[in-house]
Structure formats: C-alpha cells, structure tokens
C-alpha cells in the first residue's frame, strides 16, 4: 500500500515547491518592475556621455552652427580645474576630428590661442584613431596603419606647439599626448619622461592615469604585470576622492574579464578593491567629471559580486547616460547596460522578498 502512496506524495510535494517558486518569481518580477519603474529602457539611454553635461551640449550645439566662441569661453572658464579642462578639450576635439572648419576660423581669429592649439592637436589624435579603427592589429589594413602613423606624427608637432603656448602649470597638453606614445609605440623611457611632466603639474589626474594605464597594458606597450603595478601604485598613493583607487579594478577588467569566471569578482581581493573604490567615489567632489564613469564600472563589478542592492544604488546615480566602460566595449552599449542593470534589479527584488 505504502509503496503506491510514496511516489504520489513525492510528486505532490514537488508540485507544491514548484508552484511556490513560480509564485515567488512572479512576485519578484512585479517587485522589480515596481522598484525599477524610474529606470530607463535601452532606447532612452544616451550613448554619447557618461553623465548629463549641459555645458558640453551647449558648446557642441554652437559648434554645429560653426560658432566656436562658446567652446573658447567654456575652456577659459575651466581655469585650473585640470580634470574638467582635459575632459572638455576631448569633447571639443572629437568634434573637430570630423570637421574642423570652425577650428580653422578660431585659429585664424586668434593665431596663438593655447586652447585652440591643444584642441587642434588632440583632434589629430582622434582623427588618427578614426583612420585606424578599433580592430585588432591583424584586421587593420596597411593603408589604415600608414594613415594612423602619419597623422600621429603630425599630432606630435601640433602638441609641441600646444605645450609651448600653454600655461606652464597646465598639464592638459601632456596628458593628451599619452595616446601618441601609445600609438607610436614609444619606448618606456620616453613615457616616463612625459609622465614626469604630467605628475609635476597634476599628480592625481584621473584621465592621465587612465591613459597611462592603457599604455602600460598588454594590448599596447606594456604587460599585465606592468599595468597591475602601475594601477596598484596609483591607488596606494592617491588621496581619497581622487578616484585613483578605481584603476586596479580597471586593469583587472581589461586583462581578465573575457577569460575569468564570474565568481572571480567575488574573490576577497576583488571585494577589497571594490570597497576601496566605493569609499573613494563617496569622498569625491560631486562634480568630478569622472565620477560617473567610476560608478558605471562599480555597478558592473557589484552586480557580478551578487551585491545587487549596492549595484542598484550606483545604477540609479548614472541611469540615462551609458558612454562608459564596460558598456562602450559592446556593439550596443545601451542594451548591454540594461541587461546587467536588470540582473541587479531582479536580484535586489528577490532578496527583498526573501529578507
């Protein structure tokens, strides 16, 4: 008798569990939709910026009309905010890499303007990379490499001019030269010299470290070890709020993310690095131009670590603007961003229900 009942009991119990888990999942989904109601869908994510920047938008809008005055004013207004200055030069120079008619007008009106000179030089770097394209070396044609190197060499002369015109305390033309050293495979000794010029003027410059880390990475002129050491040293010596504690994570992501299992993000040293970066970004000045980028990568790491609530907190702070690592490495950054964000969202909802 009991031999016939037992399978029946087992099936019934399993059915109950299954129904319960389905109901829980449905509730979690409802809850996720509720707490994520204010988050934007992929098509409403801005893929040009990492955070809203009305000043940059206004400058670019004027440039589209051929009016360079607002760009000149915005650069003058940055004063000695070197982080903002190099960021804004980059934004303006990228536009000049497409069409430089307004830049030529600017230079004609103010021949020795240091701002126009540094934009001119940095635009050449952007232009060189446009010619090269983002593919691996083996998929890049000889014509692309020839153009890349030719324009980078021109940029070297333009940077010489930009540094001679710049204020002696201004690190910008040195910071923006780092990709040149990367693209032309300059020897390590040369980069050390340039780096001394940068750090003498701005010892904890975020973008400078970002670019130098690229130079030291295995993909360009260094190795995984050199990149890791560089990042670790930057993180160890930087004051809180400089965001430099982010670089060990950046370096790890660049060298390992493709190969490593997801659990790797949960290793104790990775957790420690993430904690340090969280504390750093919390201490940073609110208008730090790179804080949003840091939050994007932190949100990714936290999601991978299963710390969904903490991840969601970062996602909320940057939602709507996704031009940042890691998303920019995907063909469709907005979708990649939303996919990971939804993982965090569902995870957070599930743990709230369970808790």
């Amino acid at each position: 008798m009991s031999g016939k009942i037992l399978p029946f009991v087992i099936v019934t119990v399993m059915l109950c569990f299954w129904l319960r888990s389905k109901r829980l999942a449905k509730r979690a989904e409802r809850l996720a939709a509720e707490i994520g109601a204010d988050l934007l869908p992929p098509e409403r994510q801005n893929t040009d910026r990492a955070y809203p920047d009305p000043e940059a938008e206004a400058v670019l809008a004027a440039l589209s009309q051929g009016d360079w005055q607002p760009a000149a004013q915005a650069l003058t207004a940055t004063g000695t905010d070197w982080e903002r200055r190099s960021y804004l030069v980059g934004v303006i120079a990228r536009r000049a890499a497409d069409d430089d008619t307004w830049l030529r007008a600017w230079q004609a009106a103010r021949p020795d303007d240091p701002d126009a000179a540094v934009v001119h030089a940095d635009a050449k770097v952007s232009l060189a990379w446009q010619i090269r394209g983002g593919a691996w070396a083996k998929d890049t044609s000889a014509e692309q490499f020839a153009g890349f190197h030719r324009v980078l060499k021109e940029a070297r002369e333009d940077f010489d001019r930009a540094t001679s015109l710049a204020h002696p305390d201004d690190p910008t033309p040195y910071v923006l030269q780092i990709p040149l050293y990367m693209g032309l495979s300059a020897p390590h000794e040369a980069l050390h010299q340039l780096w001394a010029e940068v750090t003498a003027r701005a010892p904890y410059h975020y973008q400078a470290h970002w670019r130098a880390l690229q130079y030291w990475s295995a993909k360009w002129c260094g190795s995984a070890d050199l990149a890791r050491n560089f990042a670790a040293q930057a993180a160890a010596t930087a004051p809180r709020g400089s965001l430099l504690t982010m670089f060990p994570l950046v370096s790890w992501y660049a060298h390992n993310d493709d190969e490593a299992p997801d659990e790797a993000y949960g290793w104790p040293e990775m957790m420690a690095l993430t904690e340090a970066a969280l504390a750093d970004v919390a201490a940073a000045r609110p208008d730090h131009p790179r804080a949003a980028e840091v939050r994007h990568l932190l949100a990714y790491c936290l999601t991978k670590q299963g710390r969904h609530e903490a991840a969601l907190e970062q996602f909320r702070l940057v939602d709507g603007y996704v031009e940042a690592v890691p998303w920019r490495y995907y063909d469709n950054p907005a979708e990649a961003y939303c996919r990971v964000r939804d993982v965090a969202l569902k995870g957070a909802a599930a743990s709230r229900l369970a808790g």
Partner: protein
Amino acid sequence: MTASPRALRALVLLACFYLVILVVLGALVGTDVAAWIWAPPPVAIKVTLVSALLGFPVVRGVFALGASTWDEREALPVTETEQPELWGTVRSLAERSGTRPPDEILLTGEVNAAVSEDARLLGLLPGRRRLYLGVPLLSGLSEPQLHSVIAHELGHYGNADTRFSGITRRGRDCVLRTVAAFQEQERKRIGKERSRQEKANAKRRRMGKKAKGVDTGRTGLRYRLMAKPFQAYARFYLRVTSGVGRQQELAADRMAIRVAGRDATASALREIAALDAAHDFYQSRYALLGIEAGLLPPRGEVFGGLRHLLADPRCRSTLAELRGELPAEEESPYDSHPPVAERVRLIEAQPDDGRGTGPQRPALALLRDAERVLMQLEDVLLTPEALAMERAEWPELAHRAMHARATAAAGSLRTALAAAGIAAGSASGALAALLDSADAGRLWLVAGHLPKSSEAAQATGRAAREFLRPALEAGTYGLAELALVERAGAYWELSWSEQVRLRLPGTAYTGDTQEAPEVEEALTAAVRAATADTPDTTPLRTLLAH
C-alpha cells in the same frame, strides 16, 4: 685523414634518422593491422585514416630525398677553349691547394662562389666537380682576392670535404624537408581552427559582445606531437653537422691564406660583404629601374652595369665604410657558416705573410671577351619575358622609366578629374584644372573620385580626406613632373652617385660636390601646400611658370 670519422658520424646520424622514421611508420602500420584484426570495421577504418594522415608527411619528407636542387639552378658553363686564363688560374690554384681541379666552371649572377660534387654511393666515391663563380665577384674583386675566394672553395676539396659533405648535406635536406612537411600540415589545421573561431566570434558579435582575439594554441596539437621526435632529432642533427660545416669553413680559410695570402683573404671577405649590398642596390635601383616600363639596359649591362656603380667615387666611399664595419650577424646554431666577422677576425689574427694587397688588376681581366660573356649570361639567366624587352642606353632608360612611373602615378588622378567632369588633354592642362579646382574649394570633390579601399569608402569627414591624401599627393606630384617635362623640357637624369633626379634644363648635375638646385624638394613642398586643408596653389604655379 680527419674527414673519415666525420663522414662516419654523418653516416651514422643519417642512418639513425631513417631508423626513427622506420620505427614510427612501423608503429602506425602495426596499429592499423591490430585494429583490423581486433576492432570492429568502423573503428578500424578510422584508425587507418588517422594513421595515413599522420604517416603521409613522414613518407613525403623521406621520398623527396635525393635530387639536390643545387645543380638545377641556372648558370653559364665556360669551357677551357673559351676562357683559357680563367681555367689556367683555377688549375694552378688547384695545384697549389693539392687537389684535383673542377670538371666544370659555371658563371652565375650572384655575389657568391661555391663548389659542388656529384658524389656517388652516399658521398663515399668522388664524382663530377663544379665550380660556380658569381660574375659580380669578378666585377668587384681584385685578382688576388678572387684567388683567395677560389682557393677557399678548393680548400673544401682539399680535405675531402665535398665528398663527405654530400652525406651531411643530403641528410640535412632530408631532415629539414620532413620537418617542413609536418609544419605545413600543422599550418593547414591551424587555418581551419582559425576560421572556426572566427565564425564563433561572428556569433559572439551578434550576441552583442565584442569579439575575442583568435587563439589557435591548441590546434594542430596532434601534428605537433607527431613532429616532436623528428624535430628533436632535427635539432640534434643540425647542431652536430653544423659544427662539421664550421670546421670545414675555417679549414678552407686556412687554405686560402696559404695560397693567396692573409691580406687578400681578409680583404676579400670584407669586400664580398660590401659587394653584396652594392649588388642589391644596383639590381633594384639601376638594372631593374625600367622593368615596369618594359625596358632593360643594353645587352651585357644587366649584370655588367655594376662596374659603373663600383667606379663611382661616392659609391666607393660608401663601400669603404661597409668594408670597415662587418655586419653583426645573429649566430644560429644551425648555420653551417661561422659569422663573417668571426672569420675575418681569425684571419687577421694570423701573422703577416708580407704579401699585402698592393694595387692589382680587377678580376674581370681574367675573362676573355668579357662583354660577350656578360651577354651570354643574360641569355641564360633572364626569363624569356625579360629577354624580349626593349633595350635602352642608360640615360634614355632612366628618363623613360621615370616618365612611365610618373604617368602611372598621375593616372588615377587624371581619371578622377575626368569623372569630376573636368576634361583635360595634356598633363599641364590637367594640373592647371586641378589647381583651379583647389582654389575654388573643390579639391576634395575631385579627390573623392580617386579609387578607395573599403575602409576609405566608409570613412567620413576629415578621416575620409586623410585616406585619400597619399593618393592625391602622389597623383599631383606625378602630374606636376609630367607638366614640367611638357612645358619646361625637364628630364630625369641618371647618376651613379645618387638616385635618378628630375632636372630642369641648364641645372644639370655636374658631378662635383656642389649640389645642383633641387627641383624635387621644391616640388614636394609645393604639392603639399596645394593639397593642404587650406590649399595654397601659388608655389606650384610659380614652379610651373619656370
């Protein structure tokens, strides 16, 4: 007779190689037989296929053995009746080296001299001896230096080297060929794996994530494993036999010193290193200058023209520098030759024999009727297509060759002008039309009709211009050259001291140290200005109004 143990060693080593092959093939066949006896037929078929696949490169490597490629190369044989002085010299050198003279002397077009012997019975019995002499050596060496080179080659005969090196060389060929056959299979495998991974990457890309790099590290593993014993053996074999080869070279150097003197031997080695560079330079810059235009220098000059270059004072001073600094070759454990620098050092460390290197006749004087020999050499060495080409005297050759290059360089820009609706007949007309377009701000509209690669076609804005800029500059430069020829009577002038240059009438290069005014530098700058983002056509218009 020190060669016998060496020969014996080479023989034993070669035998061992065959043994390794036999063992491997035996194991493969044994597996097949076992599979057919004990395994079900599908398994047996698979085992047979795999073993056939593995055994194929082994068999191919082994059976390609034998025919040495050495004797198949083209060379001009010269008989004793044609060249009594050369033969007499070689005979007397052979006598002084204590060895039998060669049976044949053949002239080649390389900066090299060599001996070979069709040794029989794996190199144990003597055979027909051949001496190969590169004509550039005759052009560039003095008579005593040539003696030293020939004595060196005969030195290989002297200690029975050529006879026994037959074994060594044949063994080397065989081993290398087998290893190469394996590597080819492995490459094919890796190619397949690469395309598989690239497909996976394409899929990855469709899923949204950017592609990974392609890694083929684990593919071709089977072949690499199979090749392992052969490669290990090959390394061992090459290392051992290269030691033999090095000893042979040094012994031959000692023979050359005895016969031709220390200084002639050392200076010949230095001279050959410099001559090698000069010959490459001559071939690419002079002999083959007109090849695209279907032009060759006059008969006999294709190999003989090197003399003019060697006689030029500026070239001589460059060569003197080259002689001074011998190239620091990277030493490979498989190379059968010690580095030249090392050989020269050893030779120059010998005591002075007082024979020195006084002023001597050039070695070409040994050739009777050298002009005719140089012509015959062309008949043997040039391809039928090259032989059918038109011949032109050097000055005419230079002008016509460069004119053809300029025409070719300007070709696509002229097509682009036509496509932009700007028709022009002459080069100067086309250039004037181009400059007018530049002044009117339409330069890049014209340039947009230049041929584009797929990357260039996708580019927009400044990047699109940068893709086109090299072609635009080259085309404009070509047009400007042609216009100068048309309008100002400019011409290209050949010089043995420097590259072919465009000259305006009345500014010819006079050959002294005073530099003639350079048209080309001015032209380059003017073309750059005319095609800049803010074009300035004035310099180019001024130049053309010349």
